[in-house]
């Protein structure tokens, strides 16, 4: 049997803060119009300018814009599981699986605050562990623990 590997999916889209050890998403922001993109893009689609985008941290916290509990499997994902669009402070909507949340109606709500984690999201066809970004709900009492 071949050795199992750990694969980082879209590794350029997130990083870990060296001092605090807190992960954050990497995006791009237009110097001219303020448009922010995730994953990072080279050309601003509003200005259609290829000089104006620069890499920025999009932070590690956001709020649930909308979500669903999925009851059908997808490749690497066993139902039921929770997915959401997360609205980040920079004004970007990011699709993400949700962890740390019971996959049942009522366990998550629009407007809930969530925090980025980098962890195993699935296994690929060969059984390798695929790591990537996910968000988890911030529980009451954790909210003071850093402004993200």
């Amino acid at each position, binding site marked *: 049997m071949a050795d199992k590997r750990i694969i980082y*999916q*879209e590794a350029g889209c997130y990083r870990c803060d060296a001092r605090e050890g807190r992960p954050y998403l990497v995006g791009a922001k237009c110097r001219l119009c303020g*448009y*922010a*993109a*995730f*994953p990072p893009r080279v050309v601003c*689609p*509003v200005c259609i300018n290829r000089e104006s985008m620069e890499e920025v941290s999009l932070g590690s916290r956001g709020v649930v*814009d*909308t*979500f*669903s*509990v*999925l*009851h*059908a499997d*997808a*490749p*690497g*994902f066993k139902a039921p*599981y929770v*997915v*959401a*669009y997360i*609205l980040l402070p920079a*004004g*970007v*909507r*990011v*699709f*993400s*699986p949700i962890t740390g949340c019971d996959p049942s*109606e009522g366990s998550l709500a*629009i407007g809930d605050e969530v925090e980025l984690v980098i962890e195993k*999201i*699935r296994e690929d066809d060969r059984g390798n562990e*695929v790591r*990537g970004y996910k968000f988890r709900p911030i529980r009451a009492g954790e909210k003071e623990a850093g402004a993200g």
Partner: protein
Amino acid sequence: MHPFGKFLEKRLEDLARVAVWNAIEDAGVPPKEIQAAYVANSLSGLVTGQEGVRGQVILRDAGFSGIPIVNVENACASGTTALRCGWMEVASGLHDVVLVLGVEKLFMPRTEDSIRILMADAEVRLMGMGFQFLGWYAMELRKYMAAYGWRKEHFAKVVEKNSFNGSFNPNAQHRKPLSVEQVLGSRLVAEPLTLYMCSPMSDGAAAAVLCSRERAKKYAARPLVEIAAIGMQSGRYADPRASSRPSITTLAAKEAYERAGLGPEDVDVAEVHDAVAPSELYHYEDLGFCEKGGGVALIEAGRTKITGDIPVNTSGGLAARGHPVAATGLAQVAEIVWQLRGEAGLRQVAAPKVGLVENTGGIVEDEAAVATVTLLKR
């Protein structure tokens, strides 16, 4: 059309040939006078391995070769994208008689293979994150539930209407009328959506023959239907302003209305892209049939039934008729043509003059990748 359904024993070519010849016979056009063709197909490259020149292979089987053939791919909106290409070709004067075909064969011996392939119509990077089409619709609809108090019962009412309409459609995949209770009682797929709210996996084909006005008058044995305009728009993706800006369907509709010199009040019958039946509710507002959030009032008042003042999805829509991706748009067009000619049988609405087809396709980031709105008139 070739009826929509599950045809494991048929090839892509078999479905296409039937639709092409039905369209030719219907149009009364001598087949040798077809000068060019656009063939819409989204996913058969992954199903059969024939990634290139599918249109040439498919039409050779239907008897057509030695003419310009263009392959068209725009996910679920491939069919009306091909229509738009053919419309431009005739309008430009390049050719007078153009065939457009949409064909898709998704059923495979192992259904999980089909499901995996279907996902290729959304941005592939999202697949590694657990993205699903139905989940996207579920998330869109949840926003309306939160903002406007829409409920699952309203969603089920759309299915009740469309499944009733589909029960009269000989080309429909599902012809069983469903009650609100049956819809709500079917299994959860992507909360808040249940199985019966969603369009099925399908095989099928639909075709149309486009002619210049002069040629059409020469051939036509039946009342002529004119393409008044087609509007088209692609997505803007992950722009936080998108949710407060008009949807791409709204923009495509605006373009079509302006080009045609028509407005929503002129539309007598419409086919809309309800990949999940409740999405019909927000397409009402996209198309100007109601104010934002007003879709539920339309369904509750029965205004979009066949007997209502703005009948929508008389064919049964995608959930009842079936959704063979690239064939859907031209099946929508076929339904509106039949309605405008008074040939829709038990589904016929009272003397329509103007019909509308709305077709959307694909998902990139957080938005549909393409939307088209076609206005047809007698």
